[in-house]
């Protein structure tokens, strides 16, 4: 409901000064809004305009070669997807399970409050601090100790895809937990009580009533987490990002007769966001590489925006369904 009724009220309000003030104020607010919207539109348009020229299959698939004319970002795209995949694999189970614990099981209100506050704060910690933690703890403490324990030489005790994913997993953990908690809390108490009344146990209620309905909301959080992780450059700066990697770091997983090639998580990797940073700051001749930089930015931003728009649509649908359920 809006209050355009103020126009009617204005006729009662005789003061010209108030009338001018009102119109002037509203015009300024409208102007400030449109300035920002136009800047944002300008940013998107300029990236698409400048970047779309260089997008070819060759650019998308080729490995980097040093020659900008033949360069591609294929390895960076695969690296970004691999890191995001491993990150989700690490963060999603623990995130969803602990959110279920906090919402459904935790009875101690004080503990609940502490967990809530610390998760909120974890969400506000600068991403570079996570990078610092990742290098200091995962690489230099955990990795080095695994190496000494298993005497594997220098396998885990160096910056690698695995540790970068683990660090990003901690970074996106609050996103997943908070969105899961929100969607669990949206499931109306009547439904739980009805299920309890029919003799369902707590686990049955969670498994059959709460979780299926909360699933789209949880999925929204997971998708948002992917888009956040894929775009973060700061935490992976010193966690094994390579500027130049001519081949994919493959290793072979032997399953019976087959040997399946997978990306070696103990190796360095290429990351789109890091690539953008490197090209923008350290490119030897910016004039030639600029279109390719725009191309890389375009791919990165499309990746992030596609995930985000999907998440927004999911959330919209989720809320709509729940509104239908809750209004009897």
């Amino acid at each position, binding site marked *: 409901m809006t209050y355009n009724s103020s126009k009617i009220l204005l006729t009662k309000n005789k003061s010209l000064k108030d009338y001018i003030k009102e119109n002037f104020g509203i015009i300024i607010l409208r102007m400030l809004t449109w300035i920002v919207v136009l800047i944002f539109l300008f940013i998107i348009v300029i990236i698409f305009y400048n970047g779309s020229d260089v997008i070819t299959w060759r650019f998308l698939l080729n490995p980097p070669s040093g020659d900008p004319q033949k360069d591609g970002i294929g390895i960076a795209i695969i690296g970004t997807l691999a890191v995001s995949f491993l990150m989700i694999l690490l963060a999603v189970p623990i995130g969803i399970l602990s959110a279920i614990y906090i919402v459904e099981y935790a009875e101690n209100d004080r503990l609940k409050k502490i967990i809530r506050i610390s998760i909120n704060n974890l969400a506000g*910690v600068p991403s570079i601090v996570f990078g610092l933690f990742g290098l200091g703890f995962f690489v230099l403490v955990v990795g080095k100790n695994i190496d000494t324990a298993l005497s594997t030489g220098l396998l885990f005790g160096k910056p690698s895809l695995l540790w970068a994913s683990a660090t990003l997993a901690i970074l996106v953990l609050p996103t997943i937990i908070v969105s899961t908690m929100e969607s669990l809390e949206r499931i109306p108490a009547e439904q739980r009580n009805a299920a309890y009344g029919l003799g369902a146990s707590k*686990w049955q209620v969670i498994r059959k009533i709460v979780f299926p309905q909360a699933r789209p909301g949880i999925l929204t959080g997971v998708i948002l987490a992917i888009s*956040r992780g894929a775009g973060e450059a700061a935490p992976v700066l010193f966690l094994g990002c390579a500027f130049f990697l001519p081949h994919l770091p493959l290793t072979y997983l032997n399953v019976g007769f087959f040997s399946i090639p997978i990306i070696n998580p103990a190796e360095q990797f290429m990351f789109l966001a890091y690539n953008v940073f490197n090209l923008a700051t350290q490119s030897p001749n910016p004039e030639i590489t600029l279109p390719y930089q725009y191309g890389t930015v375009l791919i990165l931003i499309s990746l992030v925006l596609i995930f985000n728009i999907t998440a927004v649509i999911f959330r919209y649908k989720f809320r709509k369904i729940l509104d239908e359920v809750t209004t009897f």
Partner: protein
Amino acid sequence: MNKNINSPYNKKISVKSVLLEKAVKYFFMLNGYVTLFLILLIFIFLLNEAMHGLNTITLGEFFFHKHQSAVSSSYVYQWYPTSSEPRYSLVPLIIGSLLTAIPATIISSVFGIAIGIYLSEIANPKLREILKPFIELFSSIPTVVLGFLLLTIGITIIGDIFHPASRLNAFLASIGLSLIIIPTITTLTEDALRSIPNDIRLAAYSLGANKWQTITKIILPAAINGASASIILGLGRAIGETMIVLMATGNAGEITINIFKSVRTMTATIAAEMGEVSQSSPHYYALFFIGFSLFVITFILNLIADLIISKMKLHLKKYDI
């Protein structure tokens, strides 16, 4: 053998299902505690490394000692950890962080609150449904992309208008920072304004107030807590942001209060130096000390914002009749 036990309601429940319930509960509990443990681990690990830094470098060196400048005979605060006589003053870094974060917060508060008011009170619902997700979408744009645009486009625009003392400067970075904070402030302000019950607006209109008077005299004062919380959160984000300042400030470790000069922020220092530093050196611990300080600063800012928002919610409950 009796496989069933009696529940308090005289219903038979199989032992298996009771055990399953227990097992599931403890499994979830385990995960909850793992999360809590992870958060504590981050805090304790950073604290531990930061304390090492304090022991090797001392608080005095971090904050109070001045060193003789290389170019003039005056004594200045310097961050120069790789010189033969390393200098670890955090003062230029803190000033650098503030010099980028505060202008960014001011710019984005003006825009963010204006957009919040516009979307909540003035724009028609259809326009809001389009504009709000669009602006929120912008908070998800990778900051490295904004850094890139500042380097390619922003630098010439700012250079043409202001003719700054150095091409890469604090002001350029704060423009980039404000673009990522505006969505944060907008969203929170809009939420705060929308949480004010409609009855209050109607009451104001019925007393003869026009729209502008209602906004400035009734709605905004009622939502001022939400707006200020959003500004605090924005400041926290601006201080913690890395890629934009790393790319756009120029990273000069000199102390300055000129916004058009190159500065070096706390986050950019970690990002630029952590890759090359050797483990357990004083420099390594100094970077951890910076990281821990950032952790604490953002923690405090978040906590304040949290408290303000919960206080506002409590306050708004009073209106609910």
